[in-house]
């Protein structure tokens, strides 16, 4: 069991037409491509595509994926039971994160609130607010996550289409 780099890295350009509809253009490169070369490639390709389309390029994403090469047997679990954690951001804005299929052992006696004194929960929350190896997570506007405001279990339907619950 190990996470290995997927065979290809992906460059995705998002186009928007005058009706506001979006479409994408994707290019794959081998996983041996260095991040610097990937950025240079995408940056150089963007105007070339822009010259050919009367839609406008509104976004560009570089995606590097890792996959588990030997998925173990999955125990009883439900990704719709999420651990929801709301953080206070350094810029005054709130930011949330969800943990799919939060462990019941990580909850308090009311089976609702997350037990922040749980060792594994504490390790996770500390990493979120203090960072790992000097790298501190942030909110969407780039501000550090400062402290936990709320943490509880929340049931939220999965948006994955085409899959049904068994039983």
């Amino acid at each position, binding site marked *: 069991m190990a*996470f290995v780099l997927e065979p*290809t890295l992906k460059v995705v350009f998002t186009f928007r*037409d*005058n*009706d506001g509809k979006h*479409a994408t*253009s994707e*290019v*794959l*490169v*081998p*996983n041996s491509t260095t*991040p610097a*070369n*990937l*950025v*240079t*490639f995408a940056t150089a390709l963007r105007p*070339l*595509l822009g010259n*050919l*389309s*009367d839609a*406008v*390029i*509104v*976004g*560009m*994403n*570089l*995606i*590097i*994926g*890792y996959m*588990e090469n030997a998925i173990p047997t*999955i125990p009883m*679990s*439900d*990704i*719709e039971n*999420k*651990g929801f954690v709301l953080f206070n951001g350094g810029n005054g804005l709130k930011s949330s*994160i*969800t*943990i*799919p*299929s*939060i462990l019941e052992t990580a909850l308090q006696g009311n089976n609702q609130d997350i037990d922040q004194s749980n060792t*594994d929960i504490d390790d*996770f929350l500390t*990493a*979120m607010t203090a960072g*790992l*190896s000097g*790298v501190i*997570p*942030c909110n969407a506007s*780039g501000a550090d996550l400062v402290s936990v405001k709320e943490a509880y279990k929340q049931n939220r339907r*999965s948006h*994955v289409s085409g899959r049904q619950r068994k039983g």
Partner: protein
Amino acid sequence: MIVQLTNELELHFMDNDAKVSTCLIRFPVSTSIPTLQGLVTSWIALVQAVSSAVCIRATITVGWRETSHPYPGETSDSGRSGTFLFDTAASTIASFRIPSLMEDYIGYTGPLAGIVIDTTSPDIQSVINAISDGISGAYPCDPFGADITTLSSAFMEQY
């Protein structure tokens, strides 16, 4: 102006019903891709320790957004696609699409009028060369990693 967004590490978890959901963690723009790559397994371990589902995939996304762009052309249509099929070194076919390809690059004579793409156009050639020859050490490939070699065909599709 194109602006870089916060970097994203997204962890994909699967439960025993094979449903998948993700945990998204953001990092500052200043965090380099190699630094993020070095932290992937640590973050997987931290979140896996508190989830009964199993992490099956992790993706790093580095994104940019255009903050001020011209209005899309009146004839633009994201359902109109310039489709390019390329041969690969492994004798497979790789496809590449350009949404809303300008009608200026479509051939309007002959039996394939309105369908064929003018591959002699310098602008079209620039993209074909970028895909088949690569740019700055990045060489496009098919989903299995096989190098893209030459253009096989190019045509319009309407979705």
